């Protein structure tokens, strides 16, 4: 995206830092539960509360999840990594420091391919990914003089993914977040729910004159919690920079707040005292060393990821790139599709899925797991059409019934007698009947109003309650009208 300023063309330079809560039963450095939504301070261990003398112990499943995620980001897995302390006072940080990884993260450089609306793809480079503990989440806005501290979230495992400043438009950032979320969900390493805060995004934005390679001062916006807001924040912050530069000003390096209501960013009320995190190696945890075998074992267990699945759907099942991308974004949809398409016409299944099926889910406000129509039944429905047992039109009616009852389409067609009539003599009789009843129109047709052909077909189908095979109907009408 090029921003046209008053005097110049500008280009956005944007990078993201994404905090992803790791799916695990217990916290990364303690044995308290990670469950979301418990009463205040229920899921807190003495370690999480920063009690004197307490020590962290590393949850092996968090390491497993991190390696899995790293592999999913096509990234280098570092067999040697270290934990460090990041020191700062904060109400939600009981120990006064966060255990994180600094110099030696567990995951190195990787890449994520994003799909853009024009059908092209772009590679976004991942700088690194490290694991660390989440902060608590307290209540600061119900009392004018007090804050209420709840440590339940303190110590939940996080993966922090840092991209290179590769985004040139808000759309690219949006596409990246959707792709990342999709990968995480396929991997089952993070549930990706931005509204519950299990995926949180920090944005770094700067601009530069179009065509140059310089890097100008960037501003950071922390904890933006939806894809839409991320895109808005990038666009509006970039425009702000352009305005500042074009009016002769300079952009100050700062952390800004994104206001979801106005869509604008604003300077923080309290200027943050320049932080000095005083990172140093966490003396309570020796270095983390993982083996090639361990990495290989996880690589072998890796599920098929959205890009691979998409390519397979295109190459083996003949789906269009667009359809395949839409279907593969969501793991549950992709799995549903594969089940429905197995043994049936995949392209037709895809059409039904993306058309009537999605419309039905939307109308009923259901997730795909809650769909009354099973994948198998959707496949059967497509088969009924393919085998000329029902027409496309009847199929829509059958689909309606399926969406109400969840019944097998074969059973519905059988019980309701919706089978297509393919018996020539029956159809011929109806055609004769329609012609006999509309001799005026036959006359008109013969006098050149050939457009009436379709009307005759429609009448016959109507008489047959839609069950007559349209090809046979066509054949007879053509014959009889000459």
């Amino acid at each position, binding site marked *: 995206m090029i921003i046209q300023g008053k005097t110049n063309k500008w280009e956005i330079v944007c990078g993201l830092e994404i905090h992803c809560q790791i799916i695990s039963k217990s916290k990364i450095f303690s044995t308290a539960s990670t469950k979301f939504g418990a009463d205040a301070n229920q899921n807190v261990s*003495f370690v999480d509360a920063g009690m004197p*003398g*307490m020590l962290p112990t*590393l949850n092996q499943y968090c390491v497993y999840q991190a390696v899995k995620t790293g592999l999913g980001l096509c990234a280098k897995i570092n067999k040697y990594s270290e934990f460090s302390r990041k*020191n700062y006072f904060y*109400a939600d940080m009981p120990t006064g420091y966060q255990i994180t990884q600094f110099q030696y993260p567990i995951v190195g450089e990787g890449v994520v391919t994003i799909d853009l609306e024009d059908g092209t793809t772009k590679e976004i480079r991942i700088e690194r990914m490290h694991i660390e503990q989440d902060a608590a989440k307290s209540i600061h806005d119900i009392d004018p003089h007090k804050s209420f501290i709840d440590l339940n979230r303190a110590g939940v495992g996080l993966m922090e993914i840092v991209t290179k400043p590769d985004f040139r438009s808000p759309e690219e950032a949006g596409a990246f977040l959707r792709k990342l979320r999709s990968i995480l969900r396929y991997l089952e390493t993070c549930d990706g729910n931005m509204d519950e805060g299990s995926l949180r995004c920090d944005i770094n934005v700067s601009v530069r004159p179009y065509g140059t390679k310089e890097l100008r001062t960037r501003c950071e916006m922390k904890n933006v919690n939806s894809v839409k807001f991320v895109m808005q924040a990038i666009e509006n912050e970039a425009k702000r920079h352009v305005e500042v530069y074009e009016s002769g000003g300079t952009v100050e390096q700062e952390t800004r707040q994104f206001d979801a209501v106005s869509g604008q960013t604003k300077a923080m009320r309290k200027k943050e005292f320049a932080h000095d995190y005083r990172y140093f190696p966490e*003396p309570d945890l020796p270095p983390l060393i993982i083996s090639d075998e361990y990495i290989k074992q996880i690589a072998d267990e890796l599920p098929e990821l959205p890009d691979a699945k998409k390519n397979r759907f295109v190459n083996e099942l003949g789906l269009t790139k667009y359809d395949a991308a839409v279907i593969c974004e969501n793991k549950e949809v992709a799995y549903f599709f594969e089940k429905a398409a197995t043994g049936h016409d995949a392209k037709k299944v895809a059409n039904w899925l993306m058309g009537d099926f999605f419309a039905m889910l939307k109308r009923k406000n259901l997730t795909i797991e809650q769909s009354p129509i099973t994948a198998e039944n959707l496949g059967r429905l497509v088969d009924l059409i393919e085998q000329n047992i029902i027409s496309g039109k009847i199929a829509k009616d059958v689909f309606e019934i399926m969406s109400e009852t969840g019944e097998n389409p074969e059973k519905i067609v059988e019980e309701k007698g919706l089978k297509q009539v393919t018996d020539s003599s029956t159809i011929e009789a109806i055609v004769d009947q329609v012609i006999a009843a509309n001799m005026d129109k036959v006359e008109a047709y013969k006098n050149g109003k050939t457009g009436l052909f379709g009307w005759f077909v429609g009448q016959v189908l109507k008489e047959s309650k839609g069950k007559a095979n349209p090809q046979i109907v066509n054949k007879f009408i053509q014959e009889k009208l000459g």
Partner: protein
Amino acid sequence: MTEITQLTIHETLDGLKNKKFSTVEVIKEYIKEMEVKRSLNAYVLETPETALSQAKESDNRYFQGKERRLEGIPLGIKDLFCTKGIRSTACSHILDGFIPQYESSVTANLFSSGGICLGKLNMDEFAMGGSNETSYYGPVVNPWQQNRNLVAGGSSGGSAAAVAANICAAATGTDTGGSIRQPSSFCGVTGIKPTYGRCSRYGIMAFASSLDQAGPIAKDVRDCALLLNVMAGYDAKDSTSANLPVPDFTKVLGQSVKGLKIGIPAQYRPDGLNEEISAYWDKGIEILRSAGAEIVDISLPHTQYALATYYIIAPAEASSNLARYDGVRYGLRVDGDHLDNMYINTRTEGFGKEVKRRIMIGTYVLSAGYYDAYYLKAQKVRRLIRDDFIKAFKQCDVILTPTSPTAAFPIGDKHMNENPINMWLNDIFTVSVNLAGLPALSLPIGLSADGLPLGLQLIGKSFDEETVFRAAAVIEKEAKFERLK
């Protein structure tokens, strides 16, 4: 007959097994003695009721023949250990009234082996100090020549004094730069800082995590070995604890040191070393030589940099470890109009001068622009110091040095207090061992001309406490040091 409270642990265990006295009798004797000697200020909290009820259980166990390794032994616990349901404050104002809901692993090991808690022992605030004068509860008085008002050493001053004064059979200590060994030397008792990782740090309030290690202070070498048997062991709750078997340390006591190579580091005899101390060091060397050991001159060339290295690394870690004391979840709170001011008010009032000094130094050496020059540099020198020992131990099996460059000095000593560095210099013989993570024991070798105990230090290879104990037992036997009655 000797008073019960003057007995060692192994003598007390003998008496209990042979029904010469009951645990309740033992505990009552100690409680009486504690009351008499309150002027020492060794205990900051006495727990006589729980001690007596535990004693009854111990007697029951003796009656049933189900006694455990330390059944009925009255122990003092340094206030740095979190003890479940018993106030634990690290002798800091900032932990006023803190009652842990959990037990440190080391004390849990002791109590589940039958050890009985008599109370919590005085110490330098957060173990930062060498004279016990930084305690919020005031200094401990050295029981030797009590009228002279001398320090007991630090930071485990309460532990060493209580053992010397017979107001506990033995005590727990912790040692970050000499905090077990130096007070042991000042009070004429025996203490060992085991190898880093030998004892779990879980539940011990952290001072400098990469240096801190718990250990026993006791009346003799055998008691130290007995206690360490119980205190040591792998603990999954401490990721730095060593997953190694714990040998029975008492087994090596009495074994000959014939052929053992004793390293004598030249750098530990600087110009101006106190002559008495130098002479006692020679006496220790002579004892081992006469017992058949081989004396080897060794070099630890980076010794002179150990103190500066230590006083960068320890405060750096401390500045982070002590960030959790903020008035939110436990201990003292001094209000403020908003959160940051509450933090600042609490910490400013809650921490003592020495602790604040170290927090600030630690903060400084870790801060942007100074990290490389101070903290990173110190870590590099730390490696050189450790490598010195690795090299030295290719030539010898155990190293013998003095424990401290001085005997106990007066409380409020002007020289010691006019400049913090003067006090820190007291750690000169002890800090290298912590930087290298090695085991080291201090035992009394004799009295100075004016009647104060002096100690020698034995330093072992990593996880070779056995050789340390073996050599210590030989010196102890010949030194014939007389404990306080």
